[in-house]
């Protein structure tokens, strides 16, 4: 018996701090492994040798006029691409890397698999046909390691100021592998109700209900944003949870994806 098919319509995609899937209609995550023919004399069958890997992402979206997910603020969708590479003065950014989180599965809940990586915009086509909708075709090149991880937080909730909140409230998310080197994670805060400072950490433990230590501490932030971080200070712990601490009570909409490396 075949396994259940996954309908593409439920995929989610976060480009920097924008939940772009609400305006997008197609995404393709391309993994290419670079192989070189290493066959010596005398062999009857070619023997390929793996050199390394690289990732690119194609993301096609509609040109829309409001910022997702609330669709209240004026925001033309091309900015989700443009801001990844060009600064506010129309100059190429010195550091254009942005995290992209891609959830190709049927749901995007805590514990579901997700892909994530740091990317640079490679090209953007803005097409406006007289007889159709304006569309955006973007292509990104990965600027580092590919993350094949799990969603460890996907919430829109109020966080009480001055109190450390854990996601989940007890235990942790099983990310299936203990890892040997460290931890890699991406954070997308796409909604924030105020301007107070928040700090978010990924914590890990060898057992779900065990003792948790800090694996990754994202930079403190006061507005919506996205971060990608790879840290080797902690390793070998299979269960991850999220710690959220804010100076004042605010509602955040966020998704965090992590894996062990």
């Amino acid at each position, binding site marked *: 018996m075949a396994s259940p098919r996954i309908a593409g319509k439920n995929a989610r995609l976060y480009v920097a701090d924008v939940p772009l899937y609400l305006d997008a209609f197609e995404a393709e995550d391309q993994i290419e492994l670079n192989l070189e023919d290493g066959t010596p004399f005398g062999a009857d069958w070619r023997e390929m040798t793996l050199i390394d890997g*690289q990732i690119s992402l194609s993301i096609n979206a509609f040109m829309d006029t409001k910022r997702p997910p609330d669709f209240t603020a004026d925001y033309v969708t*091309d900015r989700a691409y443009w801001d990844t590479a060009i600064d506010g003065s129309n100059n*190429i950014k010195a550091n254009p890397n942005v995290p992209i989180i891609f959830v190709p599965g049927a749901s995007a809940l805590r514990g579901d698999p997700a892909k994530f990586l740091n990317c640079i915009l*490679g090209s*953007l086509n803005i097409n406006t046909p007289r007889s159709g909708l304006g569309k955006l075709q973007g292509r990104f090149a*990965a600027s580092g390691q590919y993350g094949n991880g799990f969603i460890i937080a996907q919430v829109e909730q109020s966080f009480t100021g001055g109190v450390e909140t854990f996601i989940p409230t007890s235990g942790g998310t099983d990310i299936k592998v203990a890892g040997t080197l460290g931890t890699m994670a991406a954070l997308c805060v796409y909604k924030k109700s105020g301007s107070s400072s928040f700090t978010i950490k990924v914590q890990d433990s060898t057992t779900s209900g065990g003792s948790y230590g800090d694996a990754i501490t994202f930079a403190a932030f006061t507005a919506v944003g996205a971060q990608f971080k790879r840290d080797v200070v902690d390793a070998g712990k299979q269960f991850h949870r999220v710690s959220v601490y804010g100076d004042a009570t605010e509602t955040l909409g966020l998704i965090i994806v992590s894996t062990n490396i």
Partner: protein
Amino acid sequence: MASTRIVGKDAVFKVAADTGAVVDISADGNEITLNLELNNEDGTGFGVSWREFTLIDGTFSIDYASWYATGTGVIDEVLMGGPTMATLFAKRLFEFHPNGIGPSSTKPKYSGSVFLASAPISANRSGITTMRARFSGASQLARAVA
């Protein structure tokens, strides 16, 4: 709930016939594509398992499809540099408004300078004569929403 889609028919494209002011040639156009290309170079060092790309610079081009039309201020004369083609090779200003004349918060304006790269005219026995112009970017591409 989805946002309001931007309909292509509202797009506006202006380009200068010479080194002067831009001219609106949208009335005869039917499709425009702005291609932004960023040049990423492989900067991967020894010992790394995944390729690391570094952004070097950017360029852009514009593909503009139009019905072929003659007369003062329409595509034939504007793109060809006038009756004597004196400004065919001129570096020209352009403006592209994907959602109608802006700039405003929901009507971005792209602008910069371009050179005409190609402009084939296609005359079919059974159809309307068309002109497809390609422009190559010759400056910074600017996006404005206010």
